[in-house]
């Protein structure tokens, strides 16, 4: 089954690349852009059909490698049937 992990900087952590994207958009005339947030999407194909098991395993993957809890938060989705965590 598929699992989607979305990782973003926590509130309060400045993302200079997002700021630069916002400035570039304003420079193109999109003056309504107040701020920009970026996220990272990691798509996993897992050899399991057990949603509970998949959710727990992907949570462990996030804690151990995919996200850095000092600066990032993450969201896990199992799209074959709605959000998971």
């Amino acid at each position, binding site marked *: 089954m598929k699992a989607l992990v979305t990782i973003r900087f926590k509130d309060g952590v*400045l*993302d*200079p*690349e997002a700021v*630069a994207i916002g400035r570039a958009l304003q420079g193109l005339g999109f003056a309504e852009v107040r701020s920009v947030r970026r996220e990272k999407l990691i798509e996993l194909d897992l050899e399991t059909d057990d949603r509970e098991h998949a959710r727990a395993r992907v949570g462990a993957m996030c804690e151990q*490698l*995919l996200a*850095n809890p*000092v600066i990032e938060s993450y969201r896990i989705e199992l799209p074959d049937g709605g959000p998971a965590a």
Partner: protein
Amino acid sequence: MRAAVITFPGSNCDRDLLVAMQTCFGRPVARVWHGDSELPPVDLVGLPGGFSFGDYLRCGAIAARSPIMAAVRRHAERGGYVLGICNGFQILTEAGLLPGALVRNAGLKFVCRPVRLAVVNRNSPFTAAYGPEPITIPVAHHDGNYVIDPEGLARLEGEGRIAFRYLDNPNGSTADIAGVLDARGRVLGLMPHPERAVDPLLGSEDGKPLFASLLAAIGGGGAHR
């Protein structure tokens, strides 16, 4: 003093660090591959600069999960010394051996130039040989912007764990932090490259007192824990 330098795939300052340590310590330094699971008996482990694993996912993230890092963690827990420079600093934060994280430079540019630093804590085993005057050491990084929450920053300041601060902050780093110590003062991570400042030919010798401090703290003999 027995020391080792670890090489990760994508390390590129490992030889410079090895040469600087051998010159300053006056004895051979071991090289260790990231895939090894044991360290030789050493007092000091050096994590070099570079772009381990291509900086994939986050700088230092994948190197921090290398087999050798479990041995580095045990070494630090035993009170062994660890020096992480640039990518080595990023690896230490990713491994949780130092607090905070290093993110993209505020100016978004790779910064490669000598910077002036204040030696904030001159009582640590890494800095005791420094005098009160500022030093000049090169930086070369794209992700040296040190991030830590206010409580963590207060703890670092209260415990004297900020080793170096930039006098002219090149990367947006919180509180101008260039290098931090762990709670015991035996693990140091810093973005500037002291190993690139150990010879007049390189334009500065201000990195030498860091290695001299370690030699004085650990001793010149072959004894080890």
